[in-house]
């Protein structure tokens, strides 16, 4: 892979659950279990999966906003797991995050000016005298103007809100931005505006995006490559159009079959997955998907399939595909 910006190898996130007061045994859940993938510079990597599959946790880990339990993670060939907190703070200039909308990603008591200026102030990028102009330039990039400078977050709409969050992420001129469900809380029309804005910015500034979403249509639209996650594991990675045209993993197939298509007549039912998502705290033996897989074979219950390259840039973790 040419010039990877992120190289993750076998990264694991375990959360400790408090045990009962009588039991000595400590419970832990693996929210992200031995995930390996690369992201190359300037591409948009989509991460999809049902809620609770660990995709947001993975996003936070990539920026070291959550500690990594085990595995290795390189950003621009720098080992993120071995940085001191001061080194990490410096490196943060190059990687930013935009969160899901629900009125929580902007400090409720700060004005837009101060929110967008915070990264500039923290890293002493602009002198205080020029702060207003600098912030205005950033706001201009995301389609906001002077009239928004002195507003508080609660005085803005969902779309404007997310634009401010994007402006803040752009302020440090990062090379990587993790977008954690940036549009899922927005109205459809606003969603389209934000997606278009993101695509424009990505091309203009040559950014690398890791786009996390459960909305497959959006992911397909924006991503170069996608990774499909199920219960903390990556089950399929590939070029966006390949995965969507020809999904290999049964889970990916099921996900795609559940997208409502306007062409399908009303009499044709959407295929949905049967059964509940198993608990991450107690994942099924063997292949994690075997409890819901339509084409399960006996081997699936016994051994866990590895993520194996089936062609150039195409990885699948499924016994059926490999055989």
């Amino acid at each position, binding site marked *: 892979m040419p010039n990877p910006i992120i190289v993750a190898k076998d990264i694991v996130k375990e959360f400790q659950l408090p045990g009962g007061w009588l039991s000595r045994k400590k419970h832990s859940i693996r929210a992200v279990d031995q995930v390996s993938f690369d992201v190359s510079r300037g591409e948009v990597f989509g991460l999809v999966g049902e809620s609770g599959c660990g995709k947001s946790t993975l996003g936070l880990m990539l920026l070291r906003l959550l500690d990594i339990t085990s595995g290795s993670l390189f950003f621009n060939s720098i080992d993120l797991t071995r940085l001191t907190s001061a080194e990490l703070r410096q490196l943060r200039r190059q990687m930013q995050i935009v969160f899901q909308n629900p009125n929580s990603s902007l400090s409720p*008591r700060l004005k837009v000016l101060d929110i967008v200026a915070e990264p500039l102030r923290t890293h002493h990028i602009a002198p205080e005298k020029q702060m207003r102009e600098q912030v205005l330039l950033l706001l201009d990039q995301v389609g906001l103007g002077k009239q928004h400078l002195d507003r508080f977050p609660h005085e803005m709409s969902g779309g404007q809100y997310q634009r401010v969050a994007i402006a803040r992420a752009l302020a440090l001129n990062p090379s990587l931005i993790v977008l954690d469900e940036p549009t899922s809380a927005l109205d459809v029309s*606003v969603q*389209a505006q934000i997606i278009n804005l993101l695509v424009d910015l990505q091309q203009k500034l040559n950014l690398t995006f890791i786009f996390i979403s459960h909305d497959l249509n959006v992911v397909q639209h924006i991503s170069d490559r996608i990774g499909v996650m199920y219960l903390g594991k990556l089950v399929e990675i590939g070029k966006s159009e390949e995965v969507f045209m020809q999904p290999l993993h049964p889970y990916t197939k099921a996900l795609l079959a559940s997208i409502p298509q306007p062409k399908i007549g009303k009499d044709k039912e959407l295929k949905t997955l049967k059964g509940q998502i198993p608990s991450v705290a107690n994942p099924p033996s063997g292949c994690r998907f075997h409890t819901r897989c339509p084409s399960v074979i006996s081997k699936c219950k016994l051994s866990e399939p590895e993520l194996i390259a089936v062609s150039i840039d195409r990885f699948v973790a499924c016994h059926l595909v490999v055989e």
Partner: protein
Amino acid sequence: MAIKESISNIQSLDTPPQSRRTLVHIAQVILRDPLALLSTIIIIVFFFVAVFAYQLAPFPEQGAGKSNPATAMLDPSPEHPIGTDRLGRDMLSRIIIASRPALVVPIVVVFLAVIIGAPLGAIAGYKGGWLDEVIMRITDLFLAFPFLLLAMSIATALGRGLDKAAIALIVSWWPWYTRLTRSIAASLSQRYFVMAARSIGVRDSVIILRHILPNCISPILVQATIDLGLVILAMGGLAFLGLGTQPPAPDWGLMVSDGRTFIFKQWWLSTYPGLAIFIVVLAFNLLGDTLRDVFDPRQYR
């Protein structure tokens, strides 16, 4: 790109919510709720009386403590509307002058308790881990004693006097603010805007000052309002036991204590200062409840 254009034409769907100015909102809620309005008026009157105590009291020197044996133990009369005490001092003047310490001491006590308690709570809640353990176990140490007993012991150790009683109250009061702030800070530290600040590379100390503490203010303000009343009560308790204000200085708690020997014949000696405490404490409580509703109707109920 017709779709793109048509989409940008429906900007109006994405309209910002109506902005609400907090102060205006508080005023609206207070005006709508009769109890809140009453408590606000009582507190305003209380402030006014405290500030102009020496102008309002009919006998300011007697109020401040000068005894006047000639008029000892008079029944209520036009000249002394609620009588005089056993040293001949006009009770109304005493009550009015005593409103000054009753206003100043709680403000100082609560303010300092917040200044000490809130930052510690914010650090504990945001940082977590061993620092959280250390800070919270220290507060547990203080909270393990019954509040008034702790304040009494400290006041006794320090000696008599209003200033010492105030110090005793501060020392036993700050852990409550640490607890309150810690619980808010702990939940705030999981919010996205704090994560975003971390992802920018903001230092922890700055995150606590800029993102955590300002967002703890509303619940602290609510608690502080209620506590203003409770400190008056505690002060009264300490003074009643002889630990707070020292005679001849006027104090509501002390007056209740002084008058209780004559409670059956000259009932007004204890009743009116008791009533003053009751009304002011109740007013602060009601105002605190109102502020709680204003800041976040869902938070506590």
